C-alpha cells in the first residue's frame, strides 16, 4: 500500500535500529516516554520494542483521550443518554468505558438511544434529520479532535440548528506533560512528542520541556519507522548533550501548527479553571469548555448533568499507568479481573490505551523481556 508501506520497511528499520544501538552509552539506562496513545498502539502493533536495545525503555504517557476521562464524566454522559428525548452520539471507544453502573453499551441495552459516529459532523447530521429529538455529542480528545468539534459548533450556529449540543470533555496536552514532569515518581530522559496534536498546536509549546527540565522532545509520526526515527533523534540529542524540540514528522507538522484550527477552537471554547483527569487528579487549566456565546449548544448548560465526582475503582491503577510509573502488567488487576472483554479501567478499553495495547499485542514480548530479566 503506497504512502504506508514506505514507513513500515523492515529493511530500513534494521539499519535504523543498528544506528540507535550505536548511540547507547554502556551502562546507561534510557527511559523515553511516548506521550501519545497512537504511538503506544503503533509500538505494540508493529513490535517496535523488539528492535530496540535492552537499555532503551519506552514508557507510555497520558495521551490516550479515552483513558483520561474520569468516571464521574462517564456517569454524566450516561445520565444524559438515558433521557428518552436524547439521541446520544459518541466515538466507538467510549461505548465500552465502564462507569459507576455499566457502560454506554449497557445503557443502550437498557433503552438509551446511543449511536456511534465517526465525526461530530455526523452527530450534527443526525440532529438535522431528527428535528424533534435532542442530539448530544460526547466530545472527547486532545487538540487533535478539538478543531472538528469547534467547526461543528460553528456550523450548528450558522445553520441555526437548535436541537444539537456538545458535552465537552476536550483536554490539552501541555498541562498533562507538565504534571508528569513535576511528578517525583519518574526519571525520564526524553519525550516522543505527539504528532497529530502538534499539527494543530505546532512545536513552540514544548519549549519549556527543554528550557525548564533539560530534556529533549522529538515530535514524531505514527508509523513504526516514524517512532523508531524519533527514538534515534532523541538518542542523538542525548549523545551530543543537546535538549531541543525537534520535528521528525515534518511531512505533516508545521512549526506554527494550524492557525485556522486554533482560531476555530478559540472562537468556540475557552479554558476551564480546572478539570479532573483519571488517575492524575485535578489539573488547573487543562481542559476546554464552550464559551458563553455557545451556551445554547452546551450540553452542560442545556441539560441536567449530575456532575458528581466519582472515585476511580480502588483496584484500578490507570493513574500510575497513565503517568508511566508502572507498566500495564504491574497493575494488580491487569489481565485477571481487568481484560478487554470486561475492563475495569479506561486504559484497557481504548485501542490507544497502554493496557489494551499491551494485552492485545504485547503480552508475548513482555514475557520474553521478563524472562530475560530473570536470567
Amino acid at each position: 500500500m503506497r504512502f504506508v508501506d514506505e514507513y513500515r520497511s523492515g529493511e530500513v528499520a534494521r539499519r535504523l535500529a543498528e544506528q540507535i544501538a550505536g548511540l547507547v552509552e554502556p551502562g546507561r539506562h534510557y527511559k523515553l516516554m511516548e506521550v501519545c496513545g497512537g504511538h503506544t498502539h503503533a509500538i505494540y502493533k508493529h513490535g517496535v520494542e523488539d528492535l530496540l536495545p535492552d537499555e532503551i525503555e519506552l514508557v507510555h504517557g497520558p495521551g490516550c483521550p479515552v483513558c483520561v476521562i474520569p468516571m464521574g464524566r462517564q456517569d454524566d454522559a450516561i445520565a444524559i443518554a438515558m433521557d428518552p428525548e436524547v439521541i446520544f452520539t459518541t466515538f466507538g471507544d467510549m461505548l465500552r468505558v465502564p462507569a459507576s453502573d455499566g457502560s454506554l453499551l449497557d445503557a443502550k441495552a437498557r433503552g438509551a438511544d446511543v449511536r456511534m459516529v465517526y465525526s461530530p459532523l455526523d452527530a450534527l447530521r443526525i440532529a438535522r434529520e431528527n428535528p424533534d429529538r435532542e442530539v448530544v455529542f460526547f466530545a472527547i480528545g486532545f487538540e487533535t479532535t478539538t478543531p472538528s468539534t469547534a467547526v461543528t459548533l460553528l456550523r450548528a450556529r450558522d445553520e441555526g440548528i437548535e436541537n444539537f449540543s456538545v458535552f465537552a470533555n476536550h483536554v490539552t496536552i501541555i498541562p498533562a506533560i507538565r504534571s508528569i514532569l513535576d511528578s517525583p515518581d519518574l526519571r525520564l530522559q526524553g519525550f516522543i512528542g505527539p504528532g497529530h496534536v502538534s499539527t494543530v498546536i505546532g512545536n513552540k509549546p514544548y519549549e519549556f520541556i527543554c528550557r525548564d527540565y533539560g530534556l529533549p522532545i522529538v515530535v514524531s509520526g505514527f508509523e513504526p519507522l516514524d517512532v523508531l526515527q524519533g527514538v534515534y533523534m532523541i538518542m542523538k540529542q542525548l549523545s551530543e548533550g543537546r535538549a531541543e524540540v525537534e520535528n521528525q514528522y515534518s511531512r505533516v507538522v508545521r512549526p506554527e501548527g494550524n492557525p485556522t484550527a486554533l482560531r476555530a477552537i478559540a472562537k468556540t471554547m475557552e479554558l476551564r479553571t480546572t478539570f479532573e483527569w483519571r488517575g492524575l487528579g485535578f489539573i488547573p487549566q487543562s481542559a476546554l469548555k464552550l464559551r458563553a456565546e455557545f451556551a445554547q449548544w452546551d450540553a452542560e448548560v442545556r441539560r441536567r448533568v449530575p456532575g458528581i465526582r466519582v472515585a476511580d475503582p480502588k483496584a484500578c491503577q490507570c493513574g500510575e499507568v497513565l503517568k508511566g510509573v508502572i507498566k500495564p502488567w504491574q497493575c494488580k488487576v491487569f489481565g485477571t479481573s481487568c481484560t478487554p472483554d470486561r475492563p475495569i479501567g479506561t486504559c484497557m478499553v481504548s485501542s490507544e490505551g497502554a493496557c489494551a495495547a499491551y494485552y492485545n499485542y504485547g503480552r508475548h514480548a513482555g514475557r520474553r523481556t521478563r524472562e530475560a530479566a530473570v536470567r
Partner: protein
Amino acid sequence: MSRTEEEVLDAIEKRRRRPHVKLMDKHITLAHGAGGRSSHTLIEMVFLKELGNPVLDGLGDAAVLQAPAGSRLAFTTDASVVKPRFFPGGDIGELAVNGTVNDLAMAGARPLWLTASFILEEGLDTDELIRVAQSMGAAARRAGVTVVAGDTKVVERGMADGLYITTAGVGVIDHDTNLSAASVRPGDRVIVSGSIGDHGMAIMVARGDLELETDLRSDTAPIHDLAAALLSATDEVRWLRDPTRGGVATVLAELALACELGVVLDEAALPIKDEVNGACEILGIDPLYVANEGKLVAIVGADGANSALAALRAHPLGADAAIVGEVRADPPGMVLLETAFGGSRVVDMLAGDPLPRIC
C-alpha cells in the same frame, strides 16, 4: 343475466383449483405467515418457484431423504441477518446458502441438503423477497445442494429488520481424513485460500456511514469444491475453518487454545487487497479480524503443504492462496504475528464488536 346457485359454486371450485399465476401482494402482510391461503400462495409463487425440487414440492411436514450407506454425516445451521441485505458481491440469500454450505465443507463434507426458515417483517417489499429467493436458488444450484424443507413466519412491523434467514444443512463425508484441532502438530503450515477481509470491509463500506468509495466486493462463494480439491491433493490436511466473523485471527486463536500449540504468522505473507488494507487503515481495523465468506484457513502437514497450495491455486476460488505461517510448540495457546517491520505481537480474539451486522 342471473346465474343459478349451482353455477356460482362451480365457478368458485374452478377458481380454487386453478394454479396461481402471480403473487398479487406488493408487500408482505401478517396474512402471509398465518398458514392460510396467503401463506400458501407465497410458498408456491416464491419459494417453490425459485427453490423447488421433487422433495420440497411435496410440501410435507418433513423431508424424507436417502442417506448414502456407511457415510458419516455433517449437520450444521447458520442464521443470516446482514444489513444491508444487498451489497456489492452478493445479498442475504446467497450468503444464507453459502454460509451453511461452507460450514459443511469445513467438516470435510459434501453438502447435499438445506432447510431454510424465513422471518419476514410485515411490510417487506414482495419483489425484494423474490430477488432474495432467486438468489438463494442460484446459489443452491451453484453449490449443488437442494432445499428440502422450509418455514415462513411474519412478525409485526418493527419486530424484525426486514428479513432474517436461517438455513440448516446436511452433508456426507466420503473420505477417512479426520479434521480436528487434535490432529495439529508443531511444524504444520498455515494456509489461507485467498485475500482476507473482503466481505467485512465491503459490507462496512456498503452501509454508507463511512463516506468511502471503493470497488470492494464481498467474496461470498461456496467453497466446498475448493475444500474437496484440497482434501484430494493431500492427506496431510489436519484442520479446516472458514474465517467468517472474527476473521482469520479469531479462528487461529481458537485453534491455538484448542490444541495448546503456538501459531506464528508472517505479516508479509498475508494476502490482503490494497483497498481492504486502505479502508482498514482509515478505520483503525485490523484486516486479520475482518470477516470472509468465501475463504478457508487450513492447517496442513509440512510435507503436504506445497501440493495443498498448488491444488488451491489451481482452483478459481483459490488463485491467491498462500502459506502464511507455521504451527510451533511455543508459545502454547497463542498466535503471534511476525510483523513486516521486524517485530512481533500477539494476535488474540476480538474483544467486543466494533462492527455492525455483517452476515
